[in-house]
């Protein structure tokens, strides 16, 4: 008797709980209806993968971040998403060459001050607005009127005038022969074209009313922090995308991402520097062989910044010693799993203007010891640390604690430094504190990642002059810092190719001789995808994803 009652009670509670659950779920009925039917089926049951592939050819891409506001003239959105929707006048290909995009051709005047762009005809924005010189001018003017937001890019300050010559001819006049003009027009932001209809009061700096670009993808749905859906632009002026849609799913946890890949809920993970997938997982997936993995050519430079403005690292001898103390090959093999190549110089030789003859400093702990000795740091038998005037040779490296890779590299460095009698402390901080520290210059060592092609070397070198950057702070202690900054400023507007190359050689040599950076490796962009997804390639910029070239094949 009693047992029956318990059962009844339990059943009652269960029913109540189910009701509660049902009530809780009730409000999503409406939002479910807005989702395509095939997606609902793909989230349920174990036939999901098969169904999805049959019903559609949609690429499901997982990202730790939401696309946010993809206004192409601002910086708060995800670059890969901005690049899907908005296009520029020209693009940089993977060989570093400038290629036509919305501009079919262009002429540069002999004094390198006037750029005449002949625009592609018959192109329309996603909202039906025609693309013409008038639209280009509006875009350029909106960007220029928000000058202070683009301080990282000299280009914006170098524009003198924008002119509409005729319907399909746009003229750009520069104040100086600013040499990276075409390259900077090609990067993901801000020089991308958005429909004049999306402007608010003739501006874009306070937001836009829509996201109509000319690109191969149209943003058709966006649920913040959940997903964004990009549909193929059927009226695209160029070769249309091969699949009908890209679903950008937000998964903040990378472990979840890997499980979702295993289950077949997602097709692609793509990303630079540990942002999306760490090297350990990447290697594991590579070894398992169940998925296809891709590695791009080396794109960016990974280095350690030595602060010349601090007491111990202010001594050139010490900085030089540390160059020899680091066993880069072990780091590349042990942490980066051989997926990156060790770097001898800050910039890879194949970057523009970077083929400069510089002496490589290879691992040589004995030499490091000698140099430290010369600098007056004597090894103590007691604790294996060097001392000078009773003070220990102790320094601190700061890193963003989110980055597991940097933590691991720091531990390697710690051991290498210990070998030569230098004590290295490691302090991981969360991102904003870390950035605060970059600005204040309160560090001995820090990580420095360049932005990669096509930003290197001009944008990276240019940023050395900005006090909010760690690079600037570390270089402040240099004797010729003023000269360095002036040379950088001058070379950007140097019209003569040869002189420019000379200036680059001078600054790269100076930085190398002064041992401001310990070059570690050249990083690569990584992609993991289901084997049926083909055509996964890389753009010149590590921040873009060429979805339009991808397709499914059984």
């Amino acid at each position, binding site marked *: 008797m009693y047992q029956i009652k318990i059962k009844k009670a339990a059943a009652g509670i269960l029913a109540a709980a189910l009701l509660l659950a*049902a009530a809780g779920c009730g409000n999503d009925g409406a939002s479910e209806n807005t989702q395509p039917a095939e997606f609902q089926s793909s989230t349920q049951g174990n036939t999901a993968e098969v169904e999805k592939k049959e019903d559609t050819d949609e690429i499901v891409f997982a990202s730790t971040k939401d696309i946010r506001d993809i206004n192409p003239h601002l910086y708060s959105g995800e670059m890969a998403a901005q690049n899907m929707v908005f296009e520029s006048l020209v693009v940089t290909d993977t060989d570093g060459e400038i290629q036509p995009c919305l501009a079919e051709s262009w002429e540069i005047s002999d004094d390198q001050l006037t750029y005449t762009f002949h625009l592609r005809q018959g192109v329309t924005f996603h909202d039906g607005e025609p693309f013409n010189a008038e639209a280009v001018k509006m875009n350029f003017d909106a960007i220029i009127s928000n000058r202070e937001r683009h301080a990282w890019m000299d280009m914006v300050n170098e524009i003198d005038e924008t002119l509409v010559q005729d319907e399909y001819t746009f003229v750009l006049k520069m104040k100086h022969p600013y040499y990276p003009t075409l390259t900077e027009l090609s990067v993901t932001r801000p020089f991308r074209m958005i429909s004049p209809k999306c402007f608010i009061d003739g501006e874009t700096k306070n937001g836009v009313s829509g996201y109509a670009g000319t690109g191969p993808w149209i943003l058709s749905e966006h649920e913040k922090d959940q997903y964004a859906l990009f549909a193929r632009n059927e009226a695209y002026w160029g070769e249309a995308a091969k699949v009908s849609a890209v679903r950008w799913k937000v998964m903040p946890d990378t472990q979840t991402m890997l499980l979702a890949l295993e289950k077949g809920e997602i097709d692609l993970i793509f990303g630079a520097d540990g942002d999306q997938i760490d090297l350990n997982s990447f290697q594991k997936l590579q070894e398992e062989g169940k998925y296809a993995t891709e590695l791009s050519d080396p794109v960016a430079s990974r280095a350690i910044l030595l602060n010349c403005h601090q007491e111990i690292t202010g001594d050139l001898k010490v900085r030089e010693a540390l160059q020899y103390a680091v066993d880069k090959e072990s780091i590349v093999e042990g942490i980066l799993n051989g997926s990156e190549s060790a770097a001898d110089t800050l910039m890879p030789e194949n970057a523009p203007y970077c083929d400069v003859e510089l002496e490589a400093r290879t691992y040589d702990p004995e030499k490091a010891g000698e140099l430290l000795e010369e600098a007056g740091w004597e090894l103590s038998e007691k604790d294996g640390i060097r001392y000078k005037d009773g003070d220990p040779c102790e320094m601190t490296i700061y890193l963003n604690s989110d980055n597991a890779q940097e933590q691991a590299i720091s531990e390697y460095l710690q051991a290498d430094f210990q070998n030569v009698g230098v004590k290295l402390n490691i302090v991981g901080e969360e991102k904003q504190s870390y950035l605060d520290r970059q600005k204040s210059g309160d560090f001995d060592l820090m990580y420095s990642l360049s932005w990669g092609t096509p930003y290197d070397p001009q944008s990276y070198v240019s940023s050395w002059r900005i006090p909010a950057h760690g690079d600037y702070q570390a270089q402040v202690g240099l004797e010729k810092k003023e000269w360095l900054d002036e040379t950088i400023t001058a070379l950007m507007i140097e019209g003569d190719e040869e002189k420019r190359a000379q200036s680059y050689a001078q600054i790269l040599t100076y930085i190398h001789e002064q041992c401001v950076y310990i070059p570690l490796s050249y990083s690569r962009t990584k992609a993991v995808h289901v084997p049926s997804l083909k055509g996964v390639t890389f753009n010149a910029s590590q921040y873009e994803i060429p979805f339009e070239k991808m397709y499914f094949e059984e």
Partner: protein
Amino acid sequence: MIRFIAKRLLLLIPMLFAVSFLTFVLVNLGGSDPAEVALRVNEITPTEEAVASMREQLGLDQPFLRQYGDWMLGCLHGDFGNSYVDNEPVAAAVARTLPNTLRLAGVSLAVILVFSVTAGVLCAKYEDSVGDRLVRAFIFLGTAMPAFWAGLLLMWLFAVKLALFPTSGMEGASSVVLPAVTLSLGYLSTYTRLIRGNMCRNSRESYVVYLRARGMRERTVMRHIFKNSIQTSLTALGMSIPKLIAGTVVVENIFAWPGIGRLCVTAIFNRDYPVIQAYVLLMAVLFVVCNTLVDAVCMVLDPRIRREQEAQG
């Protein structure tokens, strides 16, 4: 009774003021300059002029008390300011994410109720049996596992291997199951043990002997035991509700659940002060209100507390 509740509600007002002030002070004690961060999260180089103009725009050039006053006044009108990062009104961000978290916490609460009451009652009935021990051991293990690990294990087993649920996201009714179960794991053992312990203790009370001596049916006896046992659990459960809502951060991250926990964590990383302040204030209100509600419910259930209060009042 009504007077008591009215008094408690009145007391809430100074309490919330104190909480809001503390929140404001604590958040402003943070190391980074909010104006600088607001620039940086939008990838604007924080030059001196840019920082100064941003400071003015955000009202950070005002004296501290003035800033607090403005903020408080806004809050009273339902205006919690705009996010420094994307300029979205904080109220809108909360309205977008809070229902999702409430849904997750609600289902979780249901899971906790069903499992802990069932398991608690059954364990008490078969006290010290093998089943009792097994259930307790199992639940203990579940509680001891950190949520991120338990969550991934559940995901691997039920989503990947058995393909019963989606791994993550908020798509369709079934997607809530795994995060809700993960979230409830930490509470299951507390309530199961609480109910079990109370029932075991109560069943040895003399009133149970009297009930049995009067020849009451076993179900009546059980009902009395259960009713007397449930009270402390109810108080604890009442306090668990805001904890459940505030404690969803880890689970929301793993299961890509677009709730308020994730909103808050992102805000903390970006030093998005208006969002952090609104979140803390909201959670404080939740705790205080739930606490008051639980007290009221206890008074209804237990005449002794009621009489005590009335004697004092």
